[in-house]
């Protein structure tokens, strides 16, 4: 799949999902199981993305500078730091550790 096919195809899929909600009968919301399961799918995907982005290197699981950076990000989130600061802090910790020779 070329870069543009991916960008436009995935964007169209995401828009179709938004529009489907606006066109669907409102009584679908009355089934709480549906909404709950969808919310948990979002949680599962974001948790998996966090874990693989922090630990995966191709097909290997490695512990490198990303792990302490993620711990600092979690601490910042617990202290209610804004999103952008959390992201910048994580980058700074990883960059600092690597500059200091810690993989």
């Amino acid at each position: 799949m070329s870069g543009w096919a991916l960008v436009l195809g995935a964007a169209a899929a995401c828009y179709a999902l938004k529009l489907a909600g606006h066109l669907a009968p409102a009584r679908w919301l009355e089934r709480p199981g549906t909404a709950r399961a969808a919310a948990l799918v979002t949680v599962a995907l974001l948790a998996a993305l966090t874990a693989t982005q922090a630990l995966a290197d191709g097909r290997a699981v490695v512990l490198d500078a990303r792990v302490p950076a993620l711990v600092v990000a979690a601490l910042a989130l617990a202290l209610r730091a804004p999103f952008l600061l959390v992201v910048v802090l994580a980058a700074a910790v990883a960059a600092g550790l690597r500059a200091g020779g810690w993989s």
Partner: protein
Amino acid sequence: MRVPSPPPGARPTAAQALSVGVATGAYGISFGALAVAAGLTPLQALALSALMFTGGSQFALVGVVGAGGTGVAAAATAALLGVRNGLYGLQVAPLLRVSGLRRLLAAHLTIDESTAVGTAQPTPALQRLGFWLTGTSVLVLWCLATAAGTVLGDALGDPGRFGLDAAAAAAFLGLLWPRLREGRAAAVAAVAAVVATAAVPVLSPGLPVLAAVLAVPLVLLLRRPRPGGGAEAVGGAA
């Protein structure tokens, strides 16, 4: 063109909408930088922000592409993360009551932030104002910040040296964090993280994330809601 007079109490709603727009839009900088670090062109990154316009899916797509995953895995992950916007559409459509071209535009602006601000307002007029103003301000600032981020990402070069890979992990954690309050959400997150990590050596890049969706039925089957846990206890595992 007739400009409608603002509804009573519009000022706090407008202030809330614009501040959410600025705060959310700003992290478009990190999206733009990560997108070019993952190998997308600046124009592709901007197209995602303007056309896909849902942060979680955008970060997921560039994350899977950056990890060497296939386009199909990247698109599937982005679409699955976009399912919640359909549920937001169900919630806001009765508040907005629009049709035709305006409905198409309302659908495009249906994201976490516009739904949260819109549904939190006390009157129907303010709900509409909150939704439209939040959605529009996030869209404009998100695209501007993405463009700025692509310039920054290009200038930084090697993503690892500046910790952009760690920044991407922190971005996903930041999107996850506010969703963890509910009891079973934390259990699903923990199981999903373990499943995805365990699958990394076995599956090709991108697929471990999709496999982690199995955490949802697993947790729903093993952890029934406690009695008295609220209305969602009925049919939660159905």
